[in-house]
Every structure is written in C-alpha cells, then in structure tokens.
C-alpha cells in the first residue's frame, strides 16, 4: 500500500518555469491566431492553419498542464487513439455538406425576420 501512496504523492513533474514558458507559448499562438484572422486568405487555408494551431495548443495543455506526457504510455494509448477514431468517424459525413449546399432553396425574397425586440423604458 505504501508504494502506491508514494506514487500518488510523487513530485508533480515540471518546474514552475516550464509551466510559465508553456503559458507564454499558448499566448503567442493565440495572438498569432488573432493576427491571422485579419489576413485575407482562402477559407480552407485559414481553417487548416487555425485547426493546426488549435491542435498544437491542445497538445501542449494535455502534455504539460494535464501531465499526460509524464504518465504511463498505456494511459495515453488507451485515451488518445479512441478519441481520434471517434472524431474521424464524425468527420466522415463532412463532404455531404458540400453536396447539400447545392440543394439550398433559392429564395425569390428574403424569409421573414423576427420583430425587433421591445425597448424597455
């Protein structure tokens, strides 16, 4: 029992300086995303870069803040591939959105809009 208690109380790997540097990187990547928001570029290009940056930020948080980098490999292999496979399954239907965009009803006039909110005195 004592060896397991020792495992639970072991020093949280990673110094404060490491955590602060990860935090700085996360802020830098966020500022990069905001900067890119205002650069004109093709939609799929923008989306790829944004998702790539988000994945890097997510990986940094999971590895260092959530301590996953220092856990046993079996935990990582149990959690991550299952998550990736399920997300890929969700994405399987994505190309259908391009087909259905061509099926949109072409309105002759705009559909009704909600009445303006009543101003409270």
């Amino acid at each position, binding site marked *: 029992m004592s060896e397991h208690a020792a495992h639970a109380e072991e020093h949280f790997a990673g110094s404060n300086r490491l955590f602060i540097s990860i935090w700085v990187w996360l802020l830098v990547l966020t500022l990069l995303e905001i900067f890119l928001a205002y650069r004109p570029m093709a939609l799929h290009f923008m989306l790829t870069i944004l998702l790539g940056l988000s994945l890097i930020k997510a990986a940094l948080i999971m590895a260092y803040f959530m301590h996953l980098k220092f856990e046993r490999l079996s935990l990582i292999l*149990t959690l991550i591939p299952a998550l990736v496979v399920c997300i890929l399954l969700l994405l399987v239907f994505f190309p259908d959105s391009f087909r259905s965009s061509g099926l949109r009803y072409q309105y002759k006039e705009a559909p009704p809009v909600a009445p303006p909110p009543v101003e409270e005195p």
Partner: protein
Amino acid sequence: MSTEARAGTFPAVDWEGGAFPYRVGHRKLGMWLFIVSDSLTFSALLIGYSYLRASNVWPTPFPFYPSIVFSSVMTFCLLSSSLTMVFGVSASSKGDKAKARKWILLTIVFGVAFIVLHLIEWQHLIHDGLQPFYLPEHWVQAFTENGVPPTPLFGATFFAITGLHMFHVATGAIYLSVIAGRIKKLKHEDVEISGLYWHFVDLVWMFVFPLIYIMSVDMGGRLGH
C-alpha cells in the same frame, strides 16, 4: 495486503486487483474517461456546426470591438487560470495546502471573470437582435449572397456551443470552490483530478475560440463597423 505486495513484481497480474495498471488510480482514470467522452460531445457539436457552415450562406458579423477584444481577453483569462491551477496542483504535491488553496481561488477568480465577460458578449449580440433561430434584419441585408439570405442557424450554433462551454466553466468553478474549501481533508490526488477537469475546459475553448469567433470576423466591414 499480499496481492498488493506482489503487485510490482508480476506484470501479468496487473488486472487482479490491488494494482494500478495505469499507475493513476481509479478516480483519476474515471476523470480521464469522462474528459474523453465530453470531448466527443463538444466534437459532435463543433463538427455539426462546421457541416452547417459548409452547406449554408453564413454571416460573419463579429467586429473587432467588442467581440474579438472580449473573446481574446476571455482566452487570456482561461489560459491564466490554467497556469494558476497548475501552480496549485504543484503546491499541493509538495504538501503546501494553504498555498494550493490560494492558487485554486485565483483560478476561480479567472474563471468567473471569463463567465462575466462572456455574458456581456451575449448581451451585446442579443441587444443587436440575435436570437437562436432568427438573425437581426441588418445582418440578413449585409450577408445575403447572390440573392440567397444567410441561414438563421447562426444564433442556435453560437448560443448552444458557447452556452454549453460556459456551463462547463460554471460547473468547474463550483467544483473548484468545493475542493478549495475542503482542501485540508482531501488527498493530493483529488486536487490533481479537479485540475484535469479545469484544463479540459480550457482545452475546449482552444477549439471553440478559433472556430466560432475567428472564423466569423467581419472582414469586409459589411456591418459598417
């Protein structure tokens, strides 16, 4: 007692009880499994939102001020809250419960700041006339493409995704306040587990912020901002 004494010696008996196969204990494993399942919930919502965006005319109404400024400050609040949480868990691992409590309280402050700013953001949009299934009149005029008006589902996806995330932040703040209050009676593992949940909340925002806010920036100034 004897199985636990043998546990370190035979790898094959990892699953016969008294051992820690992932070396994390059942409560932490439970939290990790919950995080994986909740990630799938948010993935499903975000991918559904992406599907709608790809198959419809979609308004991109967010002005730099207040929307992008507010959401950037909110991102800063959540990232800083993750940092303070990590400091708190680190202090707890060294046995310094008083310091850990202070860091956790600071984490809660950042989380509440996030919620307050987010609610103000919602207020701006609702005041503009955005509802879950209706767009404001001036948005419909500004974003009609080739005679096809923008889909009214912008509000539904925006409020659903950001609302669910805000609910997670609020629940996390309550959870953390319970941990901070009872920290003297809790083990270090419990503080670590609450830290995992909080980092998960931050992680989701790392995806929600670019996909919902950055992708809907009002680039051409079509709303006259």
